[in-house]
Each structure stands twice: as structure tokens, then as C-alpha cells.
């Protein structure tokens, strides 16, 4: 376990890393904390980037998650961790500086996956993605003058992009190998979003053969089946990849992310949280906001208190704004079959619905309804938090 005055290095300054730093302080850790921030931008929240920041309804600065200044917290900005020496308890930085630690929080998150990562970019051109604050700023500015865009990928992010662009009067084509949100959320949510997308004028093209990016007149274009789609902009929204390359050679198991135990630990001095962490059996990443918060808190408690700390309880929860729909979902997706309506009405697009298996709730969806996260967890059959 970590000595109370030991040095903790936190690698990554998005919501998992920031929460870990705050949690260390809140739990009475008195030693030095070093926060490694690869980006020069001040820490920010990602959920608004594909929503209000992209549409221009909110300034990029509004997404910031500023950290309280403290003499105990050293912030290393614009420098990335490039290696981990487990035996020597040291993180190496790109600048060459070694950072010795007594405790380490791995929170390096994930980055956008590209069509090239999937082997489908034959254009030789760089792809446009939306992941960082800089991505959001650039895309926001480009959307202001665009008249037609092509989005590759009909997952949550691709469809949020489509929503924002359609609301700006841009002609939107979404290319995908399956119906919107189908594998993430199941057929009910998929059909709901698809109906709204079409009602808002979005052209959805689905073909399991997959998209190839090609070059047309010096610009990126997308081929699906035998058709090539062109626009002012082609944006790839095909998932994410964990930032694990810096851990190569460390001996840590990093497939499909940094594999952690039931308390988010890799060893008794190394923990991982957020999009980079893979939890459960078989281990899987669960890259969502609430998961990053819960894992960071569990991880820090385990670093400080070992086996006396509570185990991580998965309470899946995420939300998305899709056209005229504000969706909040809890439980274990995909949701299958028709749900029971607990409140409101689906015809009015104002409802709380629930999916059950053998009478036991396993999923819930709120459509255009304010609902406290605790109530949605309850409707979704999620466990009650075990960490305060």
C-alpha cells in the first residue's frame, strides 16, 4: 500500500485523472502529487464537445474542468509519459525527465480510432475526427461554412455529429456498416434515432461491406458499395483506441486496455481508471463519463486502503443528444425487444422506459425527461453506489 506521504503520479488529465487528484486530496493523502498532462490546453470535459461546443451554443472554454491550485500538486503540461518502469517505480516523460512514484494512476484515456486504423483509408490523406478540444474548435469553424458533410460511422458520436450538422442546415450523409447505434444500444433505440435522423433530413446509408476512404480532386471522399460520397468535409467517427503505447515493455497486460482487478488495480501501487482501463471478465473497456468518475474514485481508495477499499461496482450510464431526443440510458446494453413504459409516453417522445429479462430490470431509457441519475440507476437495475 501507499505510504500517506508517498508521491503519486497521475498520468492523464481528463476527467479520470482530475477526479483521481481531487480524490487523493479528499481522502487525506498528504504526499506530493504529479499530474502529467499531454495536452497544453487546460483540462476539459469531452461530453459537450460533440454537442453545445460543436454547434457554437457554448464557448469551448465552458467545457473546462479547472483544478484547484495546490502547492502539493505539480502539473507537468505539454509533456507525455512515454514509458513505465514497474520494477524501478518510475514513469519516463517525452522530455526525458524521470518521474519516480510510490503510487501511479494510469488515466491516459483513449483517442479517436480512424478508418485507416481499420485498414480502409486508401486516400493517403489525413482523416478528420472529433475527440479533443482542438478537434471541436476546428470542426465547429468548418461547419459554419459547410453545405454538405459526410460522416463515417453511425455510433453515438457519429449520430451526435449528424444531429448538430443537420440543425445548422447542412446536408448530412451518414455511412455505416449497420443501423444507427444498433450494436451499442439495441434495435429499439436504433429505430428511434433512425426515425428522427430521417425526419431531420439526414441521409443514412448502411452497407455491411464497410467504408473505404478515397481521394477525389485532392480531397477526402468515402466509398460505400459502388458509390463514392463527397462533401465539404468527411469526418470519421468509428470508435476509439486506448492510449497504451507508452506501456509497451512495462509488462502490463494492455488488451483490450490496461487490465485491472475488482478495485481497479494493476499492482498494489499501480491503478488505472477511465477509458484506458479494462475491467471484468473477460476484461472490457467502458469508455463513458460516469464510469471514469466511479473508477477513479475506486482506484484511489484502493491505492490508499488496499483490500479494505470497496470493490468497483459497474453502474453503466450514458447520455446522448440526438436530433430532438435527449437520451439517458442506464444498465446493460444492448436493450432487446419492446420496453415497458414506466412514465410518460413514447408517442409524445417524453418517457421513461424499462427493459426486463425474466422479470428483472436490466436497462432503462429516459427520452426527453429530466431524471436524477440515482432514479435512472434504479429503473435500470444498476446496483447502488458502494463508495461515498
Amino acid at each position, binding site marked *: 500500500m501507499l505510504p500517506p506521504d508517498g508521491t503519486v503520479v497521475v498520468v492523464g488529465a481528463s476527467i479520470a485523472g482530475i477526479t483521481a487528484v481531487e480524490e487523493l486530496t*479528499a481522502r487525506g493523502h498528504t504526499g506530493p502529487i504529479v499530474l502529467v498532462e499531454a495536452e497544453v490546453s487546460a483540462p476539459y470535459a469531452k461530453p459537450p464537445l460533440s454537442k453545445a461546443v460543436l454547434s457554437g451554443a457554448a464557448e469551448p472554454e*465552458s467545457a473546462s474542468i479547472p483544478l484547484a491550485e495546490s502547492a502539493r500538486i505539480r502539473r507537468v503540461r505539454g509533456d507525455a509519459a512515454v514509458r513505465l518502469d514497474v520494477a524501478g517505480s518510475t514513469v519516463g516523460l517525452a522530455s526525458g525527465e524521470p518521474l519516480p512514484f510510490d503510487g501511479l494512476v494510469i488515466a491516459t484515456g483513449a483517442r479517436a480510432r480512424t478508418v485507416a486504423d481499420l485498414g480502409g483509408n486508401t486516400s493517403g490523406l489525413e482523416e478528420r475526427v472529433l475527440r479533443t478540444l482542438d478537434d471541436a474548435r476546428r470542426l465547429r469553424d468548418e461547419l459554419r461554412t459547410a453545405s454538405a458533410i459526410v460522416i463515417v460511422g453511425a455510433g453515438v458520436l457519429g449520430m451526435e455529429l449528424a444531429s448538430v450538422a443537420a440543425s445548422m442546415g447542412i446536408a448530412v450523409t451518414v455511412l455505416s456498416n449497420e443501423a444507427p447505434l444498433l450494436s451499442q444500444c439495441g434495435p429499439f433505440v436504433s429505430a428511434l434515432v433512425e426515425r428522427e435522423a430521417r425526419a431531420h433530413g439526414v441521409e443514412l446509408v448502411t452497407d455491411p461491406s464497410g467504408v473505404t476512404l478515397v481521394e477525389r480532386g485532392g480531397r477526402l471522399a468515402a466509398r460505400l458499395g459502388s458509390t463514392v460520397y463527397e462533401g465539404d468535409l468527411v469526418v470519421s467517427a468509428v470508435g476509439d483506441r486506448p492510449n497504451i503505447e507508452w506501456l509497451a515493455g512495462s509488462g502490463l497486460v494492455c488488451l483490450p486496455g490496461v487490465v485491472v482487478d475488482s478495485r481497479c488495480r494493476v499492482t498494489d501501487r499501480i491503478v488505472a481508471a477511465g477509458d484506458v482501463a479494462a475491467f471484468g471478465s473477460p476484461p472490457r473497456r467502458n469508455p463513458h*463519463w460516469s464510469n471514469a468518475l466511479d473508477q477513479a474514485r475506486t482506484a484511489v481508495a484502493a491505492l490508499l486502503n488496499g483490500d479494505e477499499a470497496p470493490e468497483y461496482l459497474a453502474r453503466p450510464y450514458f447520455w446522448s443528444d440526438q436530433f430532438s431526443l435527449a437520451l439517458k440510458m442506464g444498465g446493460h446494453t444492448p436493450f432487446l425487444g419492446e420496453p415497458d413504459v414506466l412514465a410518460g409516453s413514447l408517442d409524445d417522445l417524453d418517457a421513461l422506459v424499462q427493459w426486463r429479462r425474466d422479470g428483472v430490470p436490466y436497462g432503462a431509457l429516459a427520452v426527453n425527461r429530466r431524471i436524477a441519475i440515482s432514479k435512472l440507476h434504479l429503473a435500470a437495475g444498476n446496483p447502488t453506489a458502494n463508495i461515498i
Partner: protein
Amino acid sequence: MKISVDRTRCEGYGFCEEKAPTLLRLDSDDELEILSEEVGDDQQDRARLAVRSCPVAALRLEE
């Protein structure tokens, strides 16, 4: 230290309520209620966690 909410931004997710239940609560209509605007010395870390947890940055702390 004082905590405040921008009601035009708050969408009632409720992460803050989980982080600082003594300061913030969603009422029966899921509107955010600030139980104590003044944040006591022993509550400051919890208040910071609550503010960080908000996905729409609707909460503000004044030191």
C-alpha cells in the same frame, strides 16, 4: 467558499448530488436544490468533486 448553479445549463444529471449529498440535491421534480450555498471548510473537497463531475459545467465555486 460558495457554490452556485447556472440553471440555464443544468440538465439534472445528478452526478453532483452523488459527490456532495450534503450540499446539493435533486428535488422531487429533479430540479437542483442547493442545500447550503456556503461551503464549510470540511466540505470543500467534496464540493470540488461535485463541480468537476458535472458533464455540462453548470456548477461554479467562488473561493
